């Protein structure tokens, strides 16, 4: 049931917006006039492997949370193609600004999945060096990172790393965010800054239909990609469960940014198959039939069907990927359980780079306080 809005909405004409698709839910390869992709067997198989592996990482992390090893987990289930398709479009020099759900993009940036768990286990607040992977830390407050991506892109411009035609030099930033974030002021400010400065940034929105319990209809009255027109740059809606289409659309947007043609808004139309996080209970706000409908559009199933039907992969290959996923899951599990609790005094580290008298004073107090206990009970802390 929807709550009527006071005063009511005049009905908007319902026109099904165009969506870029290159691989149908049935696994059939189709063409699109604006986006073509020349993808060989090896690349198709690599996409499949990526999708399966990140889904397995995600399942393992959810299990670890259920067993009390993680405080929380934000599942990417259903959004694998949006993340792998875009993540595999990036050049090494591009810089990624994720939310807290971009485990698939992290995979594409060679961030060890175990590292992603630190934040959710509570042993650190991030755990990887963003500059090693050009993959920024997870950002939890919704939408903040879109401004950071835009500022980073303004820095790229000032470095002259845009529009040179040198593919190893020209650089783009990409900001990931969700449909809920599009209602945030920061996201709209990021659109303004990116537009007026023509910044080389791609705004990659995974519209997974739900912001925790609040559906799209409460965030927007028009298809999200159409927002871009009002800010003065192109927007495109892509089938977010189609890894090929996402890859093609993201490559085009990144090329545009790196070439000095400015920002693009990509709306990857997808679905959050699981809960918002492990703390959430989606049965309170959405019906099972909706989930069942989206199961038919699964990003992995369609690629598997395509690979099998076209003879580009067989059960031997699928079995190999399965085994690799099993080994990866085992690695994630073992390393998670082995992750030590941090030394208490390290909580005082890195608040400042150049030190701060109060932090130093409180650290000294804390150490003396603990030392007092060890004197009393023979050295145990």
């Amino acid at each position: 049931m929807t709550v009527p809005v006071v005063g009511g909405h005049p009905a908007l004409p319902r026109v099904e917006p165009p969506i870029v698709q290159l691989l149908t839910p049935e696994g059939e390869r189709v063409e699109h006039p604006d986006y073509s992709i020349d993808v060989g067997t090896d690349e198709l198989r690599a996409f499949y492997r990526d999708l399966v592996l990140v889904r397995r990482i995600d399942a393992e992390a959810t299990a670890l949370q259920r067993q009390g090893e993680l405080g929380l987990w934000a599942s990417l289930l259903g959004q694998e193609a949006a993340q792998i398709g875009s993540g595999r479009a990036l050049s090494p020099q591009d810089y990624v600004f994720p939310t807290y759900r971009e485990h698939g993009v992290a995979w594409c940036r060679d961030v060890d999945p175990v590292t992603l768990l630190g934040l959710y286990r509570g042993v650190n607040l991030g755990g990887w060096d963003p500059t090693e992977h050009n993959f920024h830390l997870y950002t939890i407050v919704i939408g903040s990172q879109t401004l950071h991506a835009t500022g980073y892109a303004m820095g790229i411009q000032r470095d002259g790393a845009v529009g040179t035609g040198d593919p190893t030099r020209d650089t783009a930033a990409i900001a990931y965010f969700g449909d809920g974030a599009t209602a945030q002021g920061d996201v709209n400010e990021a659109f303004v800054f990116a537009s007026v400065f023509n910044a080389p940034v791609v705004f990659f929105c995974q519209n997974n239909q739900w912001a925790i319990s609040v559906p799209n209809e409460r965030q927007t009255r028009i298809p999200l990609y159409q927002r871009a027109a009002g800010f003065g740059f192109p927007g495109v809606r892509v089938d977010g469960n189609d890894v090929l289409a996402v890859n093609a659309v993201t490559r085009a947007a990144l090329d545009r940014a790196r070439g000095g043609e400015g920002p693009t808004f990509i709306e990857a139309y997808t679905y959050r198959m699981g809960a918002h996080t492990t703390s959430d209970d989606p049965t309170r706000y959405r019906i099972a039939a909706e989930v069942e409908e989206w199961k038919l559009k699964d990003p992995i199933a369609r690629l598997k069907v395509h690979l099998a039907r076209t003879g580009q992969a067989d059960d031997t290959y699928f079995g190999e990927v399965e085994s690799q996923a099993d080994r990866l899951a085992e690695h994630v599990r073992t390393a998670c359980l082995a992750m030590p609790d941090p030394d208490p005094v390290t909580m005082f580290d890195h608040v400042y780079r150049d030190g701060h008298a109060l932090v130093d004073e409180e650290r000294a107090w804390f150490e003396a306080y603990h030392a007092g206990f060890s004197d009393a009970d023979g050295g145990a802390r």
Partner: protein
Amino acid sequence: MTAPSPTVPEPGERPRGRRTTIAKAVNEALRAAMEEDPKVLVMGEDVGKLGGVFRVTDGLQKDFGEDRVIDTPLAESGIIGTAIGLALRGYRPVCEIQFDGFIYPAYDQIVTQLAKMGYRSSGTVKLPIVVRVPFGGGIGAVEHHSESPEAYFAHTAGLKVVACSSPTDAYFMTRQAIRSDDPVMVFEPKRRYWEKGEIDLDATPLPLHAASVVRPGTDVTVAAYGPMVRTALEAATAAEAEGRSIEVVDLRTLSPLDADTLVASVERTRRLVVVHEAPTFLGLGAEIAARVGERCFYHLEAPVLRVGGFFLPYPASRHEDDYLPDLDRVLDAVDRALAY
């Protein structure tokens, strides 16, 4: 009467060298920083062609270009948020928030991101960003143009917060803040922007995070920062005529606080009055009173007293003479401290 420190001009003091204003001193500091380091950027609303509503950035865009002196869209959160991105790319942005009361749209980016990102990253990223905030009242302005929000930021770990009170400090503290690899918020006393004082660029600057005894005295310490330093000095001059010797400490740094300088002063004078324009309730004075109380318990002859704004939204400007601490309110507190 002698001024022990060259950093604060005495009221009525004869010029001893070059005199300039705080606004021009900040301008010179920005110019020198931009000449020294090509990664230094200035960004904010109206900072370019106009030179800022207070003209603090006057002429910088003409000399350094639009890529380094950036007229931003009118969006404070956007200014700080994009500055963070620029810093992640290796730049050192100096952001101007046009007026104190306009900082709140940027509050989330400052407190949630700017203050915490270095910590979140375990030190792998740095954000050498300066946020300049003209603050305080006394200019007869409309609402939101006269506030003193410094305590909100001093309360936030990850930020450093300083306030200048003289041209020399304005110059050096701005330079030091820009060189800092930590985010620094510099609160500038807007009503003192155009008051002339001596500037001595050959002086050895104090460290950024040090308080300064700007006038020695024996009977009571008055601690102040920003625009209230001059008020405290005027009170000291007036008290001297009545035979009372006030020591004035310019706090200069609000986070970290330089408690040692203050404690040393209070151990000499045994009395402390803290003055700021911000409301006394949960203001810097409250923290200082608690700390000095802990460290100087056996030295104090009187409770630490606070003089500040009342617990009101900043009132209409026709009230501000009654709202803001002035010389008489400071002297009243000094009298009360001495009466114990």
